[in-house]
């Protein structure tokens, strides 16, 4: 797997990171794995290193988006051609990576978003389902392309894309979402979807608890508005 880097942003995922790395190595033994430790207070960094992954230790927590962007910067500096982003909580099944690669090759895409809804069944809370549906509609209205899972963090990006996202504030600090798809489309990158398997979240604190979904939706509308208002870089 020449030129591929798997970037895993991780915050306090000591319970799952080892398993994630083991599974990735089982399906893709030759690929480079980078864990971006986002200021974890547990043994995430130590466990990741122990399983043979490269680890970047951020001095403090800067958020999922900031950590992922650090992975892009690493890939850019080290000359990688492709970055695959995978979550550290064992939700993304590494067996589906081949679907992303196949979609990029056959459709000559710049970015492939792994969709949990194209194949298989995934249980999602009502509010989150509504949000996902709404943002999918917005993405379709803007790009003309139907995205079934615009909030997926399971993605394959080529060098052109992650070079752009690695720069400045082109990637949000918190949760990159449908706004990123729209920004990539505006930059004339080709973005497609491919079916992936995602498991239900096991334990841990959900980002979807309490008032967070409401704030998330408001935040996302603002981010979408900014994509529409900003000039192309």
């Amino acid at each position, binding site marked *: 797997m020449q030129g591929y880097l798997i970037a895993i942003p991780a915050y306090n995922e000591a319970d799952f990171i080892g398993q994630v790395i083991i599974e990735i190595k089982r399906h893709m033994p030759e690929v480079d794995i980078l864990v971006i430790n986002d200021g974890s207070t547990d043994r995430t960094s130590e466990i990741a290193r122990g399983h043979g992954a490269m680890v970047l230790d*951020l001095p403090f927590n*800067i958020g999922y988006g900031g950590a992922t962007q650090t992975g892009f*910067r690493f890939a850019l500096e080290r000359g990688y051609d492709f970055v695959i982003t995978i979550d550290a909580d064992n939700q993304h099944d590494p067996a589906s990576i081949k679907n992303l690669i196949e979609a990029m090759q056959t459709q000559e895409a710049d970015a492939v978003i792994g969709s949990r809804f194209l194949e298989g069944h995934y249980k999602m809370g009502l509010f989150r389902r509504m949000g996902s549906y709404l943002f999918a509609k917005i993405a379709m209205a803007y790009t003309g392309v139907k995205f079934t899972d615009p909030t997926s963090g399971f993605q394959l990006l080529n060098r052109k894309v992650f070079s752009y996202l690695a720069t400045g504030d082109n990637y949000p600090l918190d949760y990159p979402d449908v706004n990123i798809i729209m920004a990539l489309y505006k930059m004339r990158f080709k973005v497609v979807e491919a079916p992936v398997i995602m498991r239900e979240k096991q334990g841990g604190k959900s980002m979807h608890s309490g008032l967070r979904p409401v704030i998330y939706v408001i935040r996302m509308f603002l981010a979408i508005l900014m994509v529409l208002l900003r000039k192309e870089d």
Partner: protein
Amino acid sequence: MSPWVRILIALMGISLFIVVLELVRRKQFREELSLVWLFVSLGIILSSFADHIIDPIAFALGLTYPPVLVFVLIQFVFLLAILYFSKVVSDLKSRNKELSQKVALMEFQINSLNERQKRP
């Protein structure tokens, strides 16, 4: 404007001016950022003497008690100051992110070089 209201507003402005100057003197407040607050405090002091400007405007707006307009203007100026500092915080957040990413990448590079040196 009654003399007491005038004195109250002027005292507010003077107090703010002195507090800001003292914070700058103690190096607890950067000089360039303090300018905003010094101008705000001067504006508050001046507004206590601006009857001939404030009163006609207040009456034209249907306000029977002109000092209300002064307080509304003061609040608006504070809002602008807060907006300015929000912008400063946003900028700091971006720079903070860049620095932390750079630190992580450099630390990785240093560790890699150290490991290479250790190998026979």
